[in-house]
């Protein structure tokens, strides 16, 4: 079968302009497809980030915006398989001038004595940890954030509340290393409660983070926690942190569906482009197919050659497209990253192989009909063709 390859290649490139245009349009489509696949993989199929394997998040069953009683924490901690449980409250607020994008970073209220047990991937010197536990108004920042803001230990950080009507006045007491390179500021939930004063507001929190003792306990705990509060006024939904994180992408709508629709549309485009090229290219060569048949080529050999030709064109377009896609993902990695998956976006070997295989299949599939017809045309009919 390999002996047909040279003729296949020659045929693929005989109409230079048409082949080039086809290869370019397949490349453009495949570039898009590759980026989409990479995005899909990054969002839905990525392995858990460091520290995520054993971490669960419990929130209100109805919506993330509905709060849970802070008293749940003690009850969760009693469940077997829980290593630690802690309040995890988004503070939001404004730092300095909100119009400056540079001043945007995540701020959470947590429990200083539990933070490093619930998030063991974070590293900070022990004396800074103790300082954080001691100073009520203390705050800790990730090294990425501290570096970008030029903060040193002792830095005074003033936040203006928006969700909460309070203005925390914080002192930076620690800088921790985060392998996920997030830009985060943590301060004490107890300080927030104190600022809020007596009242129901302080007794309610957004979510709890739970560190399980082992992987086996993770699914069991998710179920146990939700069952425990099933019939209360504030039922919970508990899931892995990885699954929970995807909720923040859902402000883009049903991203999974969007990605699939785009991929389907792109695939269909390649199919049409390739089908059109192959139909034209076969049409022009009916007579040559008759000649080959006269020389003893079987319908099977003819079929193989035409399908192969389409496959070659699709693969060339695909390879070029993936090259473009790697460039594009590299550019996206540099750009503003509001979604974690963007920061590691790349054409991984599996994404590349999948895209190429898809391109090949589309190429071959799109030429099935012309190839089949050509293979079946009788010799004399084919030879009479003046094309």
């Amino acid at each position: 079968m390999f002996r047909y390859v040279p003729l296949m290649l020659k045929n693929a490139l005989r109409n230079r302009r048409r082949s080039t245009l086809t290869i370019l349009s397949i490349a453009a489509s495949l570039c898009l497809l590759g980026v989409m696949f990479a995005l899909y993989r990054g969002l839905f199929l990525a392995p858990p980030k460091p520290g995520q394997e054993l971490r669960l998040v419990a929130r209100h069953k109805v919506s993330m915006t509905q709060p849970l009683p802070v008293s749940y924490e003690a009850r969760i901690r009693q469940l077997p398989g829980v290593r630690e449980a802690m309040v995890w409250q988004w503070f939001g607020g404004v730092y300095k001038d909100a119009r400056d994008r540079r001043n945007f970073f995540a701020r959470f209220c947590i429990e200083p004595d539990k933070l490093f047990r619930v998030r063991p991937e974070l590293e900070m010197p022990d004396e800074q940890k103790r300082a954080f536990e001691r100073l009520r108004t203390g705050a800790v920042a990730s090294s990425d954030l501290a570096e970008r803001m030029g903060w040193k230990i002792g830095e005074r950080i003033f936040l203006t509340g928006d969700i909460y009507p309070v203005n925390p006045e914080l002192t930076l007491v620690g800088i921790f290393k985060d392998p996920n390179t997030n830009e985060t500021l943590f301060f004490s939930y107890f300080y927030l409660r104190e600022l809020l004063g007596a009242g129901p507001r302080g007794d309610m929190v957004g979510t709890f983070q739970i560190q399980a003792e082992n992987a086996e306990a993770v699914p069991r705990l998710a179920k146990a926690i939700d069952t425990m509060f099933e019939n209360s006024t504030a039922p919970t939904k508990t899931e892995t942190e990885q699954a929970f994180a995807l909720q923040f992408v859902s402000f883009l709508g049903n991203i999974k569906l969007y990605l699939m629709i785009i991929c389907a549309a792109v695939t269909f485009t390649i199919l049409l482009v390739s089908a059109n090229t192959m139909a034209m290219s076969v049409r022009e060569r009916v007579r040559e197919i008759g000649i080959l048949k006269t020389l003893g080529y079987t319908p099977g050999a003819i079929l193989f050659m035409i399908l192969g030709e389409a496959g070659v064109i699709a693969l060339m377009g695909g390879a070029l497209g993936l090259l473009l896609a790697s460039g594009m993902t590299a550019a996206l990695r540099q750009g503003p990253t509001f979604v974690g998956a963007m920061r590691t976006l790349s054409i991984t070997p599996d994404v590349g192989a999948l895209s190429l295989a898809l391109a090949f299949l589309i190429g071959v599939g799109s030429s099935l009909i012309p190839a089949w017809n050509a293979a079946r045309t009788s010799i004399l009919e084919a030879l009479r063709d003046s094309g």
Partner: protein
Amino acid sequence: MTETVIQTRDLTKEFIRDEFHVVALKDANLEVRKGEFVALMGPSGSGKSTLLHLIAAMDRPTDGEILVLGENLRSLSDRAIARWRNEHIGFVFQSFNLIPVLTAIENVELPLKLTALKKKERMEHAATALKLVGLGDRLGHLPRQLSGGQEQRVAIARAIVTDPDLILADEPTGNLDAQSAQEILTLLGRLNKEFGKTILLVTHDPHAARFASRIRHLEKGELLPEGQVPADYTVAPM
């Protein structure tokens, strides 16, 4: 007694398309022996090409028997026929029918790709065939870089490269000037005499037919008995 290469009995081919009904060949009985050079003549539309196509198994008869090289063509499958044609038949067309994107040697190599030969052997065979037709210095030329006569010689090289027993040529000189035509006919004559190839040549041209050892005439789909010519047949003076 020499071997029979072609034997047809009451061979008939009808074309039926919608209300059209053409009897292209009617009850033809033809016998060609090994080593013969037979010319088939007749006016346009008399069924010459049709008969040649049936012998090459490029088409199937409506009726009658056809035995070529001992093979009953009516009983072979399409796949078997393709392989059989590759091994035993060399076909030369009026319009050369080379593949334009392939060089002379690549065109000649085409039928060998269906054999078990290695690339190197295929190239050697193809080069030998091209040398035989006098194109040893044109191996890498594309068809459009060759004259009509040279193109037809490449086509003949392609027809003989598999060392077939039977060469079928349908008006091979029809598109050529007198000089080139003469060369092609001389070449066919050589293939017949020196290499013992059995040749069936379809031609309009009485001059061309002189290269043959025997001439059979067709008229309106009927193969006339040996020695008989159509009523209005005249041989132009040379």
